[in-house]
């Protein structure tokens, strides 16, 4: 057990001491994002990777969690930390009618419906200004100046989500989820209430994502509809984290979160500021224009990356690890 789990335990040890070893606020910030993505990716993996219900609506639950925390502080002057407790349940509540309508249907309806749900929630948050302040967004005072408390909260949440995953996969729920993924008719024929268990899977997904959203609000101190209900930066990103890491594997979203946050950041920062430095060194020309385009091209890069991963590693980095090792040994 300990041997098999060697690299996972080493990773945990590194994560536990990381903020003590690394003082740089920027890298601490990136690690907090990675840990949030571990939670969100794990939730998506549960719903899509294990239960086979592909969702393009992760942002709906993330945003509901974030706004729950934000609005508690904004309107009721209750600490936004209560959002950590309430964000998950509220996201589940939003998911409920949606699952109820789309799960009895077959085929692509759930995926299409989830896409619509995310967009509906984004528009709702934009237009309902009396509640959400619309595009102005919600600004709250952060509790801590240091990033360390947020780091450990995000780590705790990520560990909790992986623990949920471990427990689910070893129980009746896990067997039922995979049965539904593999063949819904066959699952029903062995006595599985497929609609009900898909609802359970959706609720777990919504809960984890909503809680992550609430933590995001507390950490960032500012949200607006474009950020937390973003189709590309939340819903699609969640899918990428899992596909790159390995669909249907417990550690897939962990690996995927590291890779995807790095990719996103390389583009957004123009090679961690390298392009900007180069521009200053060379002194203008075409480089500023290039820098501008590259920093805006991270969504395009996501698309290219997915195509490459699907073609070379259809089971993700974790799922195809033995293949990667063989290739490295040959090379």
């Amino acid at each position: 057990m300990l041997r098999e789990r060697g690299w996972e335990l080493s990773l945990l040890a590194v994560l536990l001491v990381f903020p003590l070893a690394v003082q740089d606020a920027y890298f601490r910030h990136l690690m907090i994002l990675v840990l949030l993505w571990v939670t969100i990716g794990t939730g998506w993996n549960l719903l899509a990777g294990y239960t086979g219900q592909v969702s393009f609506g992760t942002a709906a639950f993330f945003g509901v969690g974030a706004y729950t925390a934000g609005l508690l502080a904004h309107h009721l002057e209750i600490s936004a930390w209560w959002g950590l407790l309430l964000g998950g349940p509220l996201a589940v509540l939003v998911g409920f009618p949606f699952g109820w309508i789309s799960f009895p249907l077959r085929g692509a309806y759930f995926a299409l419906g989830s896409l619509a749900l995310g967009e509906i929630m984004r528009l709702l948050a934009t237009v309902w200004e009396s509640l959400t302040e619309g595009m102005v967004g919600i600004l709250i005072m952060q509790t801590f100046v240091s990033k360390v408390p947020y780091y450990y909260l995000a780590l705790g949440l990520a560990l909790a989500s992986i623990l949920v995953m471990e427990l689910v996969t070893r129980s009746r729920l896990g067997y039922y989820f995979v049965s539904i993924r593999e063949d819904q008719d066959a699952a029903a024929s062995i006595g599985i209430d497929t609609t009900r268990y898909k609802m359970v899977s959706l609720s777990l997904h919504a809960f984890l994502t909503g809680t992550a959203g609430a933590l995001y609000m507390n950490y960032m101190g500012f949200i607006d509809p474009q950020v937390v209900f973003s189709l590309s930066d939340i819903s699609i990103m969640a899918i990428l984290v899992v596909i790159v890491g390995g669909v249907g594997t417990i550690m897939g979203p962990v690996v995927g979160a590291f890779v995807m946050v790095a990719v996103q950041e390389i583009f957004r920062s123009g090679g961690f500021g390298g392009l900007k430095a180069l521009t200053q060194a060379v002194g203008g020309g075409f480089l500023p224009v290039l820098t501008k385009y590259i920093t805006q091209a991270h969504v395009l890069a996501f698309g290219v990356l997915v195509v490459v991963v699907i073609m070379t590693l259809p089971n993700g980095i974790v799922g195809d690890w033995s293949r990667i090792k063989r290739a490295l040994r040959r090379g």
Partner: protein
Amino acid sequence: MAILEVKDLTKNFGGLRAVDSVNFAVQPGEIFGLIGPNGSGKTTIFNMISHFYPASSGSIIFNGADITRTKTHQVCALGIGRTFQIVRPLKRMTVLDNVIASAFLRCRTMGEARKAAEETLEFCGLTPYAKHLARGLSIASRKRLEITRAMATRPTLLLLDETAAGLNPGELDEAIALIKQIRESGVTVVIVEHIMRVIMAISDRIHCINHGQTITEGTPREVANHPEVIAAYLGHGGGGQYADH
């Protein structure tokens, strides 16, 4: 009292009447054969019993209760197991895990489910393949896995849909032995089958349909000698080579 009773069961697919007022009753402990040429409506009857499609009219009575409108998973929970003509194992799971998923219907903990699954695998002779991935199995073993999965839900009535199709003669004998063994364990069996050698060897009674309508019902010998059955299978003027079975 009959364990399963089908009354005036009818299914329309648009303008096509796939099953037309079929009636039969299955007695507890028997092996009841359902035969008919391709497209005669056998699998459609199974799909109505396990409620993959609702019946257009008529009723299905199981142990005295009307289950015509009972949902698929509830039909299974009441004690009707089924297999599929096209085998549908959970491909990316091991054989044991496939059966554990079924066993959870009657078991609460993982330990109980695993134990029940191992017992069912042993009963059905699949223990040597327990750790294999379901997608790597031969056709004969896949068919057997279908039966094992259905048996792990502890049914009192088992619907077998063409479990012998695609098997070689040796495997056919094994399949026949397994079905007899299932009946001996107290499970009533309704079997849809194309291979006459199998259906004639194991059925207590046979119900024959063609174009969705009942032709005849009786013992294997009676059915095999019935002129309309011979005509349905071989065309008019065909010989009676099945009669000697």
